[in-house]
């Protein structure tokens, strides 16, 4: 019954009726945006579903009183903000753990292994092309998104994506299993 209606018509109908089906339908329309953004931060489809449940409640509360002109842009912002909140909570939990659980003291042998591993990793990264190096450092060591790297160097999304894929393929061949796991996604 609602499927053919525009976002604006649905939002107006929701403000009038508070029908929860409208929110579910809007979220289904933009399922790629929500799923992809949440997957980028949470990595786990089960956590993504939990997150979508929370987001549904937030949208239900906000959209009763708020008028929205550009729904996809607003939904992107709201999803990002909710994910930031979730990340902050995770950070607090991790900080708590690090304070109250004493870390194991590394023995001499594992310290030596670590030094060797870092050398191996550095050499493998040095063997990449300049573009691949920039992308790998950006994505894995500086936590940048494809978009941020693209903006910085004037590359398209697909150029960054392609460079990451090529670099990962090379690194998987060059590195031992421990590091292969590090670069698995």
């Amino acid at each position: 019954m609602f499927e053919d209606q525009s976002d604006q018509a649905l939002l107006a109908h929701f403000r009038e009726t508070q029908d929860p089906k409208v929110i579910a339908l809007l979220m289904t329309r933009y399922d790629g945006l929500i799923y992809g953004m949440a997957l980028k931060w949470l990595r786990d489809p089960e956590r993504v579903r939990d997150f979508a449940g929370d987001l549904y409640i937030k949208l239900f509360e906000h959209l009763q009183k708020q008028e929205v002109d550009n729904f996809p842009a607003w939904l992107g912002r709201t999803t990002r903000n909710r994910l930031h909140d979730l990340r902050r909570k995770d950070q607090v939990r991790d900080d708590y753990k690090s304070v109250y659980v004493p870390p194991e003291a590394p023995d001499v042998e594992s310290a030596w292994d670590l030094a060797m591993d870092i050398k191996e990793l550095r050499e493998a990264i040095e063997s990449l092309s300049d573009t691949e190096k920039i992308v790998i450092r950006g994505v894995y060591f500086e936590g940048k998104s494809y978009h941020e790297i693209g903006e910085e160097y004037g590359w398209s999304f697909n150029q960054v994506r392609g460079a990451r894929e090529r670099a990962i393929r090379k690194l998987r061949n060059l590195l031992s299993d421990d590091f292969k796991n590090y670069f698995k996604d």
Partner: protein
Amino acid sequence: MASLNEPKLYSLATMQAYLDGGLDAETQSAVEKLLAENPDYALAMEGLDRHQVDSVFARDKEQKEFKAFLTGLGTTKEDKKVETQAKPQETPFEEPMVRDLRAARWWQIAAVILILILPAIYFFQKPDPTLDQIAMNYLEPYTFSTERGSTVARELDSVRDIYNDGSMLYKKDPKAFQNELPPEFEAAKQGYLQILTLPIDSLGTRQYLQAKMGLGQCLLFQGYQAEAIEQFEPIIQHGDNEWLPAAKWYKAWSLLLLQREEEAKTILVDLSRQKSDYRAKAQSLLDEL
């Protein structure tokens, strides 16, 4: 061009199709514009791109579960009550003895009908095999003939031998390699990639097409169907070569695994009409589909 606020562009189906290379030119260009202009959209696409799953089937299952979850969010207690009410209700009251007798008579009639139609049900209602099961019966790696090539092709021959070793191992026991392919596939892929960095002129057309075929095989069995199609395409475009029917067959399989069944069927129909080793297989696969 489609408006950048078009909901279709933000759907999981469209975004995944973009990553798999399955969009028409107009939608693809709209998606690319959005990627450049909307950082949240680019972030979402990156999330989909970097999410690792064992197979396309596992990925599709996760996405279907998410969609089902979203659809379920709007269902209220009242909706569930309406669903329950819509189910046929039991007759409110009858004398227990009469009801038992009626039920017994109905059961006798039902039993007779069932006995009569059971063979027909069995014949017509064989359970539909899943794509996984069909693939297990039909999809196996190509094996190259082992004739020796010229000096130029010596490198290609050794990569082909590595690939053939892997494909033989796989064919002997496909189930054993469902989770991890023989390492020869990766080694051969790297070899083919290396060979294909040479210009076609120095490689020769035949060698070029053979390397494309080999690389396509490695990619297909490693789960990179969209990339595999890119390798089979020049073989099909070239037209007159010994790998043409095989390239069509494996392109059809790549499309099937990408759930682009209609495009796959078009190729299979074409294969089933021309004389080749794949004619009977294509016909039989079409029947199963």
